């Protein structure tokens, strides 16, 4: 994994009449990161992805609608991108893919809370349970507890209607120890979206990329490079030539 200590650069751009702050790092194909309700933070998994991607991570407090993110991309001259989102950021990512399918060529949803939340509520999954953040895996952000949250039933239903039409290749990452959402949530996405691939990240909680950064970086890099065919193993299996 990239061990560079360089930090992402803080920048501001005008988008749809508002100043949007964002972090930028790396070079290559554009990768937009939409953070969760807990706030903008980046892990060492993001840092690893910056080896081959130009990461743009807007602060979503000022840009909550897909049109604003799309306007930001226009302002930055980004015509095509992949979109990665965590938690509640997934709803925005899905809305972007629905609104501008030509621009979004791949989606990565990490522990998304966009749909199927009522069943989770009924089973007592957490609303607002605190998740401790290990400082050594942070690349940007504040260590300490974060609160997760789930959308209401109306938002969830709206997102479910939307995703059936999204044909963008989508990678779904779910932690097997996530106390906020169940791995069962993956079924909804996989059975509804025509090109969705769910991957269980073993022993990860809701902050999947913080708990298993190498695993997340590896699978995301593979998916971004190969889309649907990421399922084919291209690793060198030779032990001793």
């Amino acid at each position: 994994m990239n061990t560079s200590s360089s930090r992402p650069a803080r920048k501001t751009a005008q988008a749809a009449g508002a100043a949007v702050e964002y972090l930028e790092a790396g070079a290559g194909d554009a990768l937009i990161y939409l953070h969760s309700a807990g706030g903008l933070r980046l892990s060492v998994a993001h840092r690893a992805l910056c080896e081959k991607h130009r990461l743009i991570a807007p602060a979503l407090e000022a840009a909550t609608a897909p049109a604003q993110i799309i306007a930001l991309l226009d302002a930055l001259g980004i015509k095509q991108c992949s979109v990665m989102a965590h938690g509640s950021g997934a709803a925005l990512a899905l809305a972007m893919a629905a609104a501008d399918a030509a621009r979004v060529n791949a989606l990565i949803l990490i522990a998304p809370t966009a749909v199927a939340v009522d069943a989770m509520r009924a089973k007592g999954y957490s609303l607002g349970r605190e998740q401790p953040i290990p400082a050594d895996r942070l690349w940007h952000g504040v260590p300490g507890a974060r609160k997760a949250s789930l959308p209401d039933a109306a938002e969830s239903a709206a997102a479910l209607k939307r995703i059936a039409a999204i044909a963008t290749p989508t990678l779904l990452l779910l932690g097997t120890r996530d106390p906020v959402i169940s791995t069962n949530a993956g079924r909804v996405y996989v059975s509804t979206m025509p090109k969705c691939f769910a991957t269980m990240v073993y022993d990860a909680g809701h902050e999947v990329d913080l708990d298993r950064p190498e695993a997340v970086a590896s699978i995301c890099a593979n998916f971004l490079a190969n889309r649907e065919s990421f399922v084919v193993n291209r690793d060198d299996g030779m032990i001793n030539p």
Partner: protein
Amino acid sequence: MKAALFCTTRYGGPSKKGVWPVPADEYSAEIAQKSYQRTLSQIRLGDEAGFDYITVAEHHFAPFSMSPNPHILAGALTQVVKNAGLALLGPDVPILNPVRVAEEIAMLDNLCGGRVIAGLMRGTVNEYVTYNINPSESRERFQECVELIRMAWTEPQPFGWQGRYYDFRSVSIWPRPVQKPHPPIFISTATPESGEFAARNRLGAGFAFTTRQIAQKASAYYREQAHQFGWDPTPDDIIYRMSFHVAKTDEQALEDLVEAGVATGVGLSMTNKAIESAVASSGYYGRDKETQRARLQSRGEIADRIENGQLLAGSPDTVIKQIQRIRDDIGAGMLDLTMGAATIGDRALQSIEMFGEKVLPRIREI
């Protein structure tokens, strides 16, 4: 109380003793085939005698048990065994492909109409040499395998798995198990770590290659841990493995065992001391290493083995008392019984019949 019959598929010819892996320079295909047929005959008899389950297990590179893939033997048994279930006790998952294990067990559950018990094992120390797996990874691999196997059985949509030791990009097994949500899972709970894992994940407990005294403590710990996790195991959740030989009288049973040359030496996993020492230093045994190594050491004289709960031996009345003690001390609801005097021909078969006719009906209410 239930009982399973475990016929170890022992090779019936000469072979080198005291080594592992065992050379095959004296191997005879004719003897091996006859050995398998003898095993199948014993199993048919056990099924007819009323044993609740027929057990298969995994061992490698030795004539003691020609069952390197227990699922192949179990597959044959689905067409041989009419009444008993199949206790897979079981695949050594850390050295295997967990998705393949999930697939095979699902197939077996279908082939026998939903009568499989899924024992997921870590394997004895020597098994890590078999497929070149680092024994220091044994427990972590095992725990990851159990979760992955369970998900493979229950997740209806294709999924990938990004584990620490296993990486699968797309899993969607066919067939699925008959039993819902899946066959009952048992693991060996000899160590505190495994007792905790079983308790946390609501898995059944198994004890083998141990003594009554050691298993009593381990069983109590497992049940105590389970209680902390919000559930209380019943006897149906605990299996105890031991040898058995029943005869008309206690004296006859002991004579048979002596004639059979019941071994008093070390077990399979202790045969190769270099391997055992290396594995022991890897952390394989867990935090109570000395207890775990000790239970695999010499099994002592026949009387000691009876006292230590390693052997049921005697007349039906005597054996029933021994079984009651196992139940009282360990809380086991099923005994997994290996043939204590397998080499003495008809009397070994009579022991199976006698157990079925005179012991089984009387232990149902224990």
